[in-house]
């Protein structure tokens, strides 16, 4: 049985870990993120799969991050993550700018246990120019056909929020199957869920194909609403009042500190509720 407490789950991630986190719409473990910040975690190497938003921004603002590899840090309609932009300007975070399919391809190499993956595109871009870890070779099966090679990505941890898990430790992700790629590539996968169900998710054809098998899962903790103030798929919509408040306050260091204090001390009030798919953040 892999069920544990949120505190114990977060306690498994050490300083300096390579941590893969999903894009905003796929299920972001915000309760766990708050716990990581409370623990004073530092030196993280974040990987946005393939982008990140509020989660990367608060972790950067709280000083937890040394390196970020991502294709974007976006608060959706509220624009670029303000703490990300500030850290970039100060040079306090090492940037590994990527493009979405490059992150996926790196993870796919990781899950196959092979050292690299070729990918089209990129040649002539400044994204490639600034990635000394990416190489261009000549396609060995053709003449004069340059192609980019990306090293495999094997994160130390993958961390995300899902709707449900079962007692055996299987995790339901539905159609968000990029979470599967993330979990398969990561050495360890930590999942927070809204609920634990009593039936076997693998026993039913309807859920089995959208389920990550327990073999990939290190630990599960219940956190509900665990993605708040972000939304969670068909469970609840984003809390736009909190997100808009964040976007305003996080423009300055002091404003961000105030938001962080309120969040860590439980002063931010949730308005998220069970609802059909809300407006995506």
């Amino acid at each position, binding site marked *: 049985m892999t069920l544990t407490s949120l505190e114990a789950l977060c306690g498994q991630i050490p300083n300096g870990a390579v941590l893969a986190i999903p894009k905003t719409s796929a299920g972001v473990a915000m309760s766990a993120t708050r716990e990581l910040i409370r623990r004073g975690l530092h030196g993280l190497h974040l990987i946005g799969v393939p982008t990140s938003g509020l989660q990367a921004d608060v972790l950067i603002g709280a000083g937890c991050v040394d390196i970020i590899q991502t294709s*974007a840090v*976006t608060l959706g309609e509220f624009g670029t993550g303000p703490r990300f932009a500030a850290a970039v300007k100060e040079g306090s975070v090492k940037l590994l*700018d990527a493009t979405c399919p*490059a992150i996926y391809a790196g993870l796919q190499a990781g899950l196959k246990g092979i050292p690299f993956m070729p990918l*089209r595109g990129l040649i002539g871009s400044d994204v490639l120019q600034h990635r000394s870890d990416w190489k261009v070779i000549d396609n060995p099966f053709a003449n*004069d056909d340059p192609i980019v090679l990306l090293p495999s990505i094997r994160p130390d941890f993958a961390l995300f929020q899902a709707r449900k898990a079962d007692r055996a430790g299987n995790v339901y992700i539905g159609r968000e199957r990029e979470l599967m790629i993330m979990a398969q590539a990561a050495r360890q996968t930590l999942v927070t869920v809204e609920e634990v169900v009593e039936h076997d998710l693998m026993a039913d054809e309807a859920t089995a194909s959208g389920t990550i098998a327990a073999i990939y899962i290190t630990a599960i903790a219940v956190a509900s609403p665990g993605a708040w103030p972000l939304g969670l798929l068909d469970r609840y919509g984003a809390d736009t009042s909190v997100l808009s408040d964040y976007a305003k306050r996080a423009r300055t260091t002091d404003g961000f500190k105030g938001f962080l204090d309120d969040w860590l001390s439980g002063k931010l009030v949730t308005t998220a509720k069970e609802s059909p*798919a809300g407006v*995506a953040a």
Partner: protein
Amino acid sequence: MVFSQTELLICTIAELLQGCRYVAVGESSPIPGAGAFLASRLSGSRLRVCALGSKTHNFFVNGSVELFDLAAQGRIDAFFLGGGEIDGQGNINLVGTGTYPRTNVRWPGSFGSSYLYFLIPRVILFREEHSRRVMVPKVDFISAPGVSATNIHRPGGPYALLTELALFMFDKTRRRFRLESVHPGHTLDEVRDRTGFEFDVAESLHITPAPNEEWIDLIRGPVKKEIAEIYPLFALGLDTTSQGVR
């Protein structure tokens, strides 16, 4: 007939998509999304739209992984990209201004542009703001280049550039934009004033055609319903035609 600028842009996009079979629409793209839904209606559903963020019009079951694979196989005919900066060679910058990595202004990032721009045949650059800070002589950071050397695998690239002022088509041979039409109420001089790069002017330069009544009815009816699933606030605004162009 009174129509809004938004409706003009939606109709122009639908026109640009004629003949396409599969059109993908990225996130934060209400006007391109509405244009694609309109084009689909006009094609009798032969043209299919896959819009990220939609449940009804989205056949991907693994985030956007499938979009990238489909694009590489040539199964996606058209897509939309924007840019904080766009230059005369069709280079786009989604990263920021100033010297990388410590850019003064940082935008979210390149997303899938550094890849999709190479692979999808009809990439429509859509950016409403038409100013010298956006339409620059040379971008500060190339998220994706407009053109490539001949030995680079590149079935895709820029097709058109649509803004609040005008429509340009991209000339792959001349490696630059050609002004095709200027929107009603604007002039060639205004376009020149507000563009930071050199461009060609089509001999057939004309005023962007006003949407016809049938298209406007489709936008205010079924297209509005389809786009409301992803962009409810934008869909509400489609009723506001009081500040119409004509």
